[in-house]
């Protein structure tokens, strides 16, 4: 019986190990990272995964080995460690040191992502203005692009429900807003997640490195329709982006005649 338990423990550890090895090929892992900041996030993720993985295998391996050894020896109490000062110092210092190390290595990515003075600067040396406003409300996303006057919140704003269209391969600053409750702007492919509080402007930035369509999700439980609060980020080359704005401008000035067809 003990031998069986020991084998199951070991098999479980191997199963977990196997799942991590095959995850990327089977689509079980996170989606491909397509943002500059995501590299550092994935690096942190990998570091934490290694730490957790090594200790997981160590613990489960030891456990299986002890159970297995006891099974061979016919049971009974072999030995017990008690009040072992050196051992206690080791198991306090080692995890503590690992936590401090993680705290130190995450500072740089966090600063690059979240600090207000990390917002990319334009040619004039000043922080880039927001490309558009993203308004979250129960239960969808609305994007407002400033119109010809370059200001948001005026009559010539261009309205894009559901779809956030951004130019690829350049830093993009977004101004996030909520109309009602707390939402969270989450683009898994950019490794970007930011809470949005009602009544407050929150800036985020990213640089998408691959043209394509990516999921935009709400990552804060915001009400009964939270699960369907989805949107899309479409990253396209600059020229196509200009054409998109042009199409939106045409829609804004529509006289409705196309609806008569």
């Amino acid at each position, binding site marked *: 019986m003990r031998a069986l338990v020991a084998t199951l423990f070991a098999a479980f550890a191997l199963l977990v190990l196997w799942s991590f090895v095959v995850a990327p090929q089977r689509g079980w892992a996170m989606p491909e990272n397509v943002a500059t900041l995501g590299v550092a996030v994935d690096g942190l993720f990998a570091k934490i995964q290694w730490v957790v993985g090594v200790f997981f295998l160590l613990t489960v391996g030891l456990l299986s080995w002890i159970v297995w050894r006891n099974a061979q020896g016919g049971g009974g109490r072999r030995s017990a460690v008690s009040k072992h000062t050196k051992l206690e110092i080791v198991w306090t210092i080692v995890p503590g040191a690992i936590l401090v190390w993680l705290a130190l290595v995450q500072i740089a990515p966090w600063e690059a992502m979240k600090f207000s003075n990390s917002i990319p600067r334009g040619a004039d040396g000043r922080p880039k203005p927001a490309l558009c406003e993203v308004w979250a409300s129960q239960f969808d996303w609305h994007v407002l692009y400033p119109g010809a006057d370059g200001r948001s919140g005026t009559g010539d704003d261009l309205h894009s429900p559901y779809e956030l269209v951004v130019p690829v391969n350049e830093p993009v600053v977004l101004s996030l807003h909520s109309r009602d409750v707390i939402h969270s702007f989450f683009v898994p492919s950019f490794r970007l997640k930011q809470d949005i509080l009602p009544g407050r402007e929150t800036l985020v930035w990213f640089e998408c490195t691959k043209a394509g369509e990516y999921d935009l999700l709400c990552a804060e439980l915001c009400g009964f329709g939270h699960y369907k609060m989805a949107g899309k980020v479409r990253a396209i080359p600059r020229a196509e982006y200009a054409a998109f704005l042009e199409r939106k401008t045409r829609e804004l000035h529509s*006289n409705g005649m196309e609806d*008569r067809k």
Partner: protein
Amino acid sequence: MTRALHRPTFLVCGALAFALTGCGFQPAPGALKLSLNASSVAALSDAPEKQKELEALLVKYFGTRAGPRYELLESWKSEGLDPNHAEKEFTPESFAPIVAANRERLAYEIAHAPGPEAARQLENTYPSLAESAELYRTQCMHCHGVEGGGDGPTGATINPKPRDVRKGIFKFTAVKDKARPRREDLVELLERGVYGTAMPSFARLSLTEREGLADYVRLLSIRGEVESMLVQSWKDDEKLDDEAAVEAIEIVFGRWMKAREKVIAFDGVVPADSPAMRAHGRELFLDPKKGNCFSCHGAEGHGDGALAFKTDAQGRKTPAYHDDWGFEILPRDFSTGVFRGGSRPIDIYRRIYAGINGTPMPGIGETKGADGELLMKSDDLWSLVHYVRSLGERAE
């Protein structure tokens, strides 16, 4: 041993808990059915057998929840009309966007289709009414209810209430004269959502799926309107038979067919926004003989006009108006900059021109003054549009 005694107890309790709660609390799709409107049941409460007859008539002409379909009327057959296959209402040009949307959505299936003919069929896929009813069940029903009565379980928790489509009244359309919406009005509304309400954008569904949902909503709406007409026919003439049903369906379906002739559009370039237009718009907004908008929307457009409120017996200020669904209704506060039916100038133009169906908001686009002339010239309307839109602008 106590453990041996407890094991069966544990198993029985677990099995009981599972049997009582199941592994989900959704009703099985097969358990859902299209029922009668509560008002029909109340109106026929003295004649239970008539309720059964009415239900049978509705099933005959509109099918069931899982198998919705129109019974083809003789007049439709002679005209070659078949609303069961809404794709036949498209021209090859208007069907092209659907083919493009299918190509995108079914890229994998098309690439792995066994031959060019199968690939072409995939591209031309259009959902049947039964498929759309299933999509309606998963996406819309929890707010809008099984019959589209706006009485789904989550509908009770939100304000404004979900639309009851059984009256055939739709607020945000591109048409005048209280006409039924065009198919495009419903499809675009699904894409855009109703901003400022709990109705979200459904752009994550494909265009084909949204078109299918619009078809199913049309069926629910026609079924609902026909139902109340049949109840009326029984009350007035004691007639509740095929003849009455066919007559009602022809009237209601005819209304939907006429929508396209009623589109409000402006033949010309939309006059650009300017301080002069806004100033003129403000004059009209405040002029009791012209726009008269302030009487409900308030002098500054905050939705606090005198007419919109009444004082009740306890001296409290309450909404003066109700909409056609019987809910209290307040005039829009323009300072929020949120317009439910779309915020483009043409959207606001259509609201001012034709009013908003089912609400006290009147249309003034074709109103004639005492002199027999149009009360508002087109420039006046556009001035109002630009003024109303400017009220939602944020200060710098």
